[in-house]
């Protein structure tokens, strides 16, 4: 099983994973090829460039038969099909927000807002301080009321465990509500 840890650049994704993973976070890479047009000469020659998308991830073994992976989204926002791959069949996602740089998480919030994957928003308390409180952030980022918003210290296992538990509880609530329809 997997849970996606999403968020903007330096929001604390790898720190989050590291706090609770039983292994030191690993990195897996995938090449992405994109065509671009060079304008060095008049003939507008197309050149292919290969970028590598990297994802940090960790693992928690829960039982002999159950392993939970925490996959961090790639640093760059534009590789949405990698986000799709990570999200497919996932338990849910945690969107980490650095409240000192709210704009950095817009893309991540937009992404999950448009999809059906259960997610929650975790406000990372850098230096142990939350710059804005949960409700203020909810308003500022127009996070829907049915999406949990909570504070987390991505460095602390106790805190990141609480965030994971909250996400799974939220996923369960969503599944139960869907079953009643």
């Amino acid at each position, binding site marked *: 099983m997997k849970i996606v840890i999403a968020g903007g650049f330096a929001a604390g994704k790898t720190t989050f994973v590291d706090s609770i993973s039983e292994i030191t976070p690993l990195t*897996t890479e995938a090449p992405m090829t994109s065509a671009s047009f060079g304008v060095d000469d008049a003939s507008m020659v197309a050149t292919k460039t290969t970028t590598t998308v990297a994802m940090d991830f960790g693992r928690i073994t829960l039982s002999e038969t159950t392993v939970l992976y925490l996959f961090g989204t790639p640093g760059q926002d534009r590789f949405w099909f990698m986000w799709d791959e990570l999200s497919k069949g996932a338990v849910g996602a945690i969107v980490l927000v650095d409240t000192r740089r709210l704009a950095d998480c817009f893309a991540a919030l937009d992404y999950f807002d448009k999809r059906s994957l259960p997610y929650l928003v975790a406000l990372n308390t850098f230096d142990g301080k939350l710059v804005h409180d949960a409700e203020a952030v909810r308003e500022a980022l127009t996070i829907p009321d049915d999406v949990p918003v909570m504070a987390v210290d991505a460095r602390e296992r106790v805190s990141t*465990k609480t965030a994971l538990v909250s996400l799974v509880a939220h996923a369960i609530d969503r599944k139960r509500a869907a079953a009643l329809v």
Partner: protein
Amino acid sequence: MSTPKPNRFVRQFALTQGRARSIGTDLPLDTQVQTTLSGRNRERELVAESAAILRMCRTPISIAEISAHLHVHLGVARVLVSDLAATGDVAVTTADHDENGPDLLTLERLLDDLQAL
């Protein structure tokens, strides 16, 4: 006289005989891979990367971990694992849920397990 080292991406391509797979097809990143009994005996017959996979999968690990430990791209790890599965040297276990994620019972067990951490 030393021969120049091919760049890593070209070498990875050669490993899979050019069969790079596109992202999103085939085995998911969290697929568990475990070396079979017959696979354990075949380590010595295989090229370095495949033998390495057989060694590292004696306890099950995911394709993502294989990719990370071997320093090969995800697509390459998928192809190598698929090949080893085809020859019966590894057993591959994908999660038994669809793209909508685990069912309610599985989620409830997950919640219990996480709380007990």
